[in-house]
C-alpha cells in the first residue's frame, strides 16, 4: 500500500474526523436480563433465555443502564430526550442470537452535545452528535483459515457471555479544523472520554478488554474545500496509541489515493496493530439495509425531568475544569501538565496521589518508568500492570530509605512481572539498602585502598573526584547503599 509522507498529505489535504466510541457499562447485570456482565468467565456460563434469544423470551430494560446513559449524556452536555424508544437493527450474524440488535435509531436518549479536549495547551471543542443505548453481541472465535475471520475458517466457536452487555455508543459530529493535529486530537478525545467515563464510574473503560472501543472515521478534502470527502471507518482500534496511529495511517493512505487522481472507497477497514496499517473489511457496496423499526417488545423511555435534574447534580466536574484544578493542586508547570495529559496519565496520577504519593513523584514514575514499559509493549499506561496504589507504595519505600530510585526501577520490573507487591519484590530480590555501617565501612576502606590516585586528587582539593569512589562502593554494594551516607563516610575517612 502506498502512502504519502504525512507532511505532504497535510500540505494538500484537510482531514475531517468522526469518532464512534462504544462503551461497555459496568452494571452488574446485562441490558435486558439479569445475567452477570463479569469479564473473563468460562464461555456461555453467563447466559439465559433472554440473552440467548430463545423463542418466547422478552427483553426488560436495566434501569441502571438508562441512568448511566443519561449521566454520560449530561457529562457530554447533551440534551436528554424526554421520550425515546429502542429500535431493532436487523442483520444476520451467528454471534447475534436474535439476528437483530436492540439499539436506538432516530430517537437516541442523548443528543446534540459537546465536549473539549486539551492538546498542547490548546482547547479543541468536539461536537457530540448523540449517545445511544444498545446491547453488545456475543463473541465469535473463528478457528483455522488465514485471516481469523469467518470466511475461510474451519469452524467458529461462539461465546454469548457478552451478548446483551449494555453498551453506550457515543458519536461525534464531524471534527474539522484540526489540521496536522488530527491524529493527536483523536487520541486526546478518546483519552478524555476514558477519563470522564471512569470518573463517572459507569464503565471499566479497559480498551484491552474491549470495554472501550473506538471506530475512527476519516476523510480528506483538498485544503480550502468545505464539502466532505469520502470517508472510511476503521474498526478494531484497541488502544489510545492505536487511535492516533490508525488516523495518521488513514490520512497518508487516502492522501496517496487522492494525489494520484484516485477515489477513496467508502468502506469499513480493519486496523492491524502489528503492521500499523488498515485493510478493507466488508465493502459498503454490499451495505446491509438494517431495516430499523421501533422495538415492539419494549415501551418508550421517558425519563422525568426531576430525575434528569437529580442525575445532573451527581456529575463530576467537566474535564477541562478538572485539568485546571488538578494542575493548581499538584503545582505542575504548564509544560509538565501538557506531558501528563498527552500521556493520558491524569487519572493514574490522581489515584497515586490519593494513595499517598507526592504529585511530583507520581508524575515521575508514570511518565518515565511506567511509560517506558508501555511503549515497549505498545500498550496504554494503565495496561502495564502496576496500580496507582503500588506506585505509591514504591515511592513510600524510597522515601523511608528502604530503596533508592535506581532500586525502585527493579521493584517496578518485579511488580510488572507479577512477582507480588512492592514489599514482596524488595524482599524476594533482596533489594533493600544495606544500612549495616560495618559492611559499608569495609567497602569504603576497600575503595580507598584500591584507588590511591583518586584519594590523592581528593586530598588535593578535587572533591568532585569523590564520585568515582562512591561509584566503586555502590558497585560493591550492588547498588543497595545510600549514596549520601557513602559520600559522608569517604570524606570522613580521607578528611
Amino acid at each position, binding site marked *: 500500500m502506498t502512502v504519502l509522507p504525512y507532511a505532504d498529505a497535510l500540505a494538500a489535504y484537510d482531514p475531517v474526523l468522526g469518532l464512534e466510541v462504544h462503551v461497555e457499562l459496568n452494571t452488574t447485570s446485562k441490558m435486558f436480563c439479569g445475567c452477570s456482565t463479569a469479564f473473563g468467565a468460562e464461555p456461555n456460563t453467563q447466559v439465559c433465555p433472554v440473552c440467548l434469544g430463545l423463542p*418466547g423470551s422478552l427483553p*426488560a430494560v436495566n434501569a441502571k443502564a438508562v441512568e448511566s446513559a443519561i449521566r454520560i449524556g449530561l457529562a457530554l452536555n447533551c440534551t436528554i430526550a424526554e421520550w425515546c424508544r429502542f429500535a431493532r437493527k436487523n442483520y444476520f450474524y451467528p454471534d447475534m442470537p436474535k439476528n437483530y440488535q436492540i439499539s436506538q435509531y432516530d430517537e437516541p436518549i442523548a443528543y446534540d452535545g459537546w465536549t473539549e479536549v486539551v492538546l498542547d495547551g490548546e482547547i479543541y471543542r468536539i461536537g457530540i452528535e448523540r449517545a445511544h443505548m444498545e446491547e453488545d453481541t456475543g463473541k465469535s472465535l473463528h478457528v483455522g483459515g488465514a485471516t481469523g475471520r469467518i470466511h475461510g475458517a474451519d469452524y467458529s466457536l461462539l461465546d454469548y457471555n457478552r451478548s446483551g452487555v449494555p453498551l453506550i455508543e457515543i458519536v461525534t459530529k464531524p471534527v474539522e479544523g484540526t489540521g496536522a493535529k488530527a491524529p493527536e486530537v483523536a487520541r486526546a478525545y478518546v483519552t478524555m472520554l476514558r477519563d470522564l467515563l471512569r470518573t463517572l464510574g459507569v464503565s471499566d473503560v479497559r480498551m484491552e478488554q474491549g470495554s472501550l472501543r473506538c471506530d475512527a472515521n476519516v476523510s480528506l478534502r483538498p485544503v480550502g474545500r468545505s464539502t466532505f470527502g469520502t470517508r472510511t471507518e476503521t474498526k478494531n482500534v484497541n488502544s489510545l496509541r492505536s487511535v492516533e496511529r490508525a488516523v495518521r495511517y488513514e490520512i497518508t493512505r487516502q492522501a496517496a489515493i487522492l494525489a494520484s487522481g484516485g477515489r477513496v472507497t467508502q468502506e469499513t477497514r480493519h486496523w492491524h496493530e502489528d503492521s500499523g496499517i488498515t485493510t478493507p473489511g466488508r465493502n459498503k457496496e454490499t451495505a446491509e439495509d438494517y*431495516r430499523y423499526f421501533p422495538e415492539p417488545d419494549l415501551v418508550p423511555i421517558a425519563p422525568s425531568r426531576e430525575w434528569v435534574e437529580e442525575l445532573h447534580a451527581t456529575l463530576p466536574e467537566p474535564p477541562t475544569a478538572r485539568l485546571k484544578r488538578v494542575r493548581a493542586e499538584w503545582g505542575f508547570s504548564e509544560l509538565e501538565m501538557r506531558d501528563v495529559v498527552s500521556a493520558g496519565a491524569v487519572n493514574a496520577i490522581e489515584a497515586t496521589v490519593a494513595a499517598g504519593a507526592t504529585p511530583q513523584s507520581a508524575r515521575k514514575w508514570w511518565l518515565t518508568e511506567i511509560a517506558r514499559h508501555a511503549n515497549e509493549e505498545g500498550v496504554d499506561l494503565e495496561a502495564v500492570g502496576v496500580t496507582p496504589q503500588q506506585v505509591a507504595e514504591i515511592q513510600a519505600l524510597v522515601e523511608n530509605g528502604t530503596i533508592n530510585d535506581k532500586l525502585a526501577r527493579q521493584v517496578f520490573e518485579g511488580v510488572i512481572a507479577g512477582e507480588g507487591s512492592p514489599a514482596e519484590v524488595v524482599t524476594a530480590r533482596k533489594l533493600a539498602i544495606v544500612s549495616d555501617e560495618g559492611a559499608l565501612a569495609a567497602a569504603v576502606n576497600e575503595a580507598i585502598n584500591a584507588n590511591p590516585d583518586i584519594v590523592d586528587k581528593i586530598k588535593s582539593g578535587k572533591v568532585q573526584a569523590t564520585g568515582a569512589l562512591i561509584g566503586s562502593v555502590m558497585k560493591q554494594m550492588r547498588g543497595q547503599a545510600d549514596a549520601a551516607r557513602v559520600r559522608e563516610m569517604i570524606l570522613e575517612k580521607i578528611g
Partner: protein
Amino acid sequence: MTLAEAPNAETIRQTAVDLATKIKSGELSAVEVTRSHLDRIAEVDGEIHAFLYVDGERALASAARVDAKIAAGEPVGPLAGVPLALKDILTYTGAPTTCGSKILEGWLPPYDATVTRRLLDHDMVILGKTNLDEFAMGSSTENSAYGPTRNPWDTSRIPGGSGGGSAAAVAAFEAPLAIGTDTGGSIRQPAAVTGTVGVKPTYGGSSRYGLVALASSLDQPGPCARSVLDAALLHQVIAGHDPCDSTSIDQPVPDVVTAARSADVSRMKIGVVTELGGEGYAPGVEQRFNEAVELLASLGAEIIEVSCPHFVYALPTYYLILPAECSSNLAKFDAMRFGLRVGDDGFASAEQVMAATREAGFGAEVKRRIIIGTYALSSGYYEAYYGQAQKVRTLISRDFDQAFSQADVLVSPSTPITAFKIGEKVDDPLAMYRNDLCTIPSNLAGNASASFPVGLAPEDGLPVGFQVMAPPLADDRLYRVGGALEAALHSAWNGPLLDRLPDPGALR
C-alpha cells in the same frame, strides 16, 4: 351417537367450575378427571387432531399432587385439578414447543412461559400442546406443518386458526379449557366457528413472556372455554403484571369473574359497528347476530349504531405491521442454537446453513409474510408501508376512542362466515385473510375483545360467533355481555349449544 352417549360423558361434559368444585370437595379426584380427558383424547383426537403432544404421564402426576394437596388441606387455586390444553406456541419446560413448524421440531424449551407458570402455580393440570397454523399465521390450522385440525361440528371443515387446536379440543370435550393466543383473531375466530368462548384480553393484560412471538405489538394470550364463567376463571388465573414482559400492564386485573356471574347488561350502552356487516357476511351469520342484539335489548341494554370509518383499512394495515414485526421476530430461527439444522455438511458456511434451514423449515405462508415484512421495512419503502400503516393504526385507535365515548361496548359478528371446508381457501391467501376482518381492529388498538356462541347458521347448521369489544382494561364488560347472552340463550335452547354437537367419537 350424540355426545351424551359418549363414554366418560358425565365427567367430560362438565364445566371447569363444576369440576373444580367437585375436585375440591372430594367428589371427584383430579386424577380421575385428568384420566377421563386423556381417554377422550385417545378416543377422538385421531379424528380431530387438536393435539400435537399429549403429556399424559406428567398430567396424571401433577393431578395426583393436586389431590394430595387437597387431602392435606393445603390452599389451592380456584381451578385446582382442572386439566387444560396449551397452544403449542407457549413454552412448557420438558414438552416440545413446535409452533406448528418444522423449524422447531424437537426443541425442548428450558423455561416456562409466564402463563404456563401461572397455570402450574394455580394447581392446574396441563394435558398437552395444541395444534396451530405455523407460528400462528393462518385462520384454519391448515398451515400447521403437522397437518390440519378438524372442526368437531363437521370434520370436513376447518376449526379456525391459528388456535384451531385449542378451540377444537374444548369443543370436542378433550379439555374443559385451553389457552390460546390472539394476534388478529386467533382465539376469537376459532371460538366462533367451533361454538365456544374465546377471549383476547386487553393488550398487556396477560404476559407474552414465553409466547413465541408472531407480532409483538399484537400478540396476546387468553382463555378458551365452553362457558363464560369458565373463561373468566381462567382469565383471572393467567392475567396480571409480569416484570419479564415490559408491555404488560402494571394495573389490577379487571374483576372478570364477578362480571361473568353478574351477567347484567341492563342500562348498558351497546354499539353495533356499522362497518362490520353487510356485503360479504353470510345471511345466517347476520341473522344470528341480529337476534343476539335484540336479545340484549330485551335484557335492558340500550342499542345504538356507531361508525368506525377506518376499520375498512384494518386488514391492509394489519398485513403490513404483522409481517414487518414477524420478519424480525422470526430471524432467530437460524439453526445456530436450537431447532432444525439443514445443510451442515462441514463445508457449508454459517450463512448457507442458515439459508438452507430457513428454506426447508418454514412453510409457504411464513415465507410469504417474512418476504412482505422485509420489503415493508426496507429503506426507501419504510415510510410508504410500515410508516403509513402505523399512522392508520392510530386512526383505528381513535375510531375506538370515539366509539367508546358513545357506547360501553361494541359488537359485531366475530367472523363474516361460518367454518369453511378444509382446502377451500388454501390457494387464496386474501380470502383466508378476510376471515379476520372483524377481529383485527381490536388487535391493532389493543383493546379487549371476545367471541361468544350465539347459535347455528340456518343455512349450514354451523356455529356463529358474536364479538364483543371493550375499552382497554375494561375486560369485565366482555364477560357481563357474554354472561347475559349465555344465560338467555341457554334457557331458550334448553342447554348449551354444544349439547347439539355430533359426537366426533362416532365418526371414526
